[in-house]
């Protein structure tokens, strides 16, 4: 099963692992499946859709590897149970008492809380909200979940790609903390936007005009002019992906060498 996920991700499984496939499955059977919850706050459901794009591993994942114990439409329960890990999608609306309560409860009942997607991790598009609209004109203030509770791990992206979700799942199952370290660090990145490229890269004499930010931008808000990113603020959703993918924001050298086999 692990080998299958690795194969899907293009990570070559070691021969000895293949040889002991039964063993791996046995361990997987014996090991209690991690109990996962899914909390959906103010987001567009794009993040869970991206998760479900991992067709190849989804069935295995949901049937054999994890147990979904809580989540609207995913589990038929009212009371939130204890969970090993909870994925939170969407930012939290301060005026919506249900959202605030559910988030607080999730923090209490989950071992690990993951801000899943940019709305949960940076606020993303909901940062533009100013209230005064139907269905509830009072719903004005939307903040990343990290503003209210401790976030252990963040997966920004609008949405995060199916691959990063799969890679993270594999890392969690394998206990690969080295791979997860950037996600742990990104838990603190809650105020994001295209202007970070100017403040944190260009202003700091770090930009080299490689164009990775403009490629990564999920809303085509970035262009390159004279070798520097130029932001069209009207298109920016403040997901933070441009800065996250910039090779000059953080540099995972060891992981890259490992992935390339160098």
């Amino acid at each position: 099963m692990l080998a299958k996920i690795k194969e899907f991700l293009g990570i070559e499984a070691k021969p000895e692992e293949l040889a002991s496939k039964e063993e791996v499955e046995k361990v997987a059977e014996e090991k209690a499946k991690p109990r996962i919850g899914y909390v959906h706050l103010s987001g567009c459901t794009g993040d869970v859709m991206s998760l479900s794009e991992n067709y190849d591993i989804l069935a295995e994942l949901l049937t054999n590897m994890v147990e979904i114990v809580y989540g609207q439409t995913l589990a038929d329960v009212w009371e939130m149970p204890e969970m090993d890990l909870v994925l939170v999608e969407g930012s939290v609306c301060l005026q919506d008492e249900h959202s605030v309560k559910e988030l607080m409860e999730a923090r209490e009942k989950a071992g690990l809380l993951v801000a899943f997607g940019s709305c949960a991790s940076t606020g993303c598009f909901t940062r533009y909200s100013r209230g005064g609209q139907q269905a509830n004109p009072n719903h004005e203030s939307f903040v990343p979940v990290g503003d209210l509770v401790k976030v252990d791990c963040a997966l920004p992206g609008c949405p995060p790609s199916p691959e990063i979700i799969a890679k993270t799942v594999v890392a969690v199952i394998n206990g690969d903390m080295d791979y997860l370290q950037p996600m742990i660090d990104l838990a603190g990145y809650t105020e994001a936007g295209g202007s970070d490229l100017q403040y944190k890269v260009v202003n700091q004499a770090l930009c080299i005009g490689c164009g990775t930010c403009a490629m990564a931008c999920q809303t085509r808000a970035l262009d390159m002019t004279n070798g520097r990113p130029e932001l069209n603020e009207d298109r920016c959703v403040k997901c933070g992906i441009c800065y996250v993918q910039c090779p000059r924001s953080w540099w995972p050298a060891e992981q890259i060498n490992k992935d390339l086999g160098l």
Partner: protein
Amino acid sequence: MVLGTYKQITLGRSTDKQIQKISQDGGIVTALLTFALDEKIIDGAVVAGPSEEMWKPTPTVALSSDEVMAAAGTKYTISPNNMVLKQAVRQYGLEKVGIVTIPCQTMGIRKMQSYPFGVRFLADKIALDIGICCTENFPFESLKTFISAKAGVDFELVEKMDIGKGKFWVKTQDDLISFPIKETHGYEQNGCKVCLDLVSELSDISTGSIGAPDDWSAVQVRTDKGETVFKQAVDAGAIELKPIDEGKFGLEMLTKLAKSKKEKAMKEIDRRKAMGLPVPYKGSSEKEDPLANV
């Protein structure tokens, strides 16, 4: 290891007369891309193609050998090639993309492949990354200054630019003008000053003129993927090889320049860190190998 991990280091050049004529040194990049396109190893390539402005490259998705040839030759200014990768996959529908990158661009691609946070179904479509050797890069206005103020040449008349033998060369139809490379100092972009990578250590195959005689290129074959393509190109006769000179003008020179780029960058990294400025790399006291690209 100041030249990064590699399986093979050699001199090489294109056997194609037309490529030899239009390309920078040994024409390795052009030879490899045209070969890979013809053999369908890639179905398109991201290159620094021509724009409306002379000598100002624009990232271009080339789908044919002709389009690759049109982008041959070095442009000594920024071409943000990575920016069109998504376009190459989504708009052009490419499944196997080749790309030419300078070291920092290679690093952007590799980071994206290891951590594709917001980049959906793209990481696995990079079929070949050809890295080029890079000491530093210049904003377009810097380049204009070299040509018009230092070489005293009309930009439109320039046929070729080159860096070698300690000089910046500008070739026009009638003249070959040069000025010491030292005079370009202070015109390079600032981000280059903390760069620890001369030879595109993370590319599949890297190449450049340093350590090679005129009209040849030094080539480092790095990944399994790179090795497969390079071997095919050599076996097919698209590229000819000869051993790299171990001495002063060969491997020794390449090693010396790679080391000196790293040493200079480490000094700058430490200086910036001491001022409290952010740098994504470790300071010299934080890592075992002070010259590693980490």
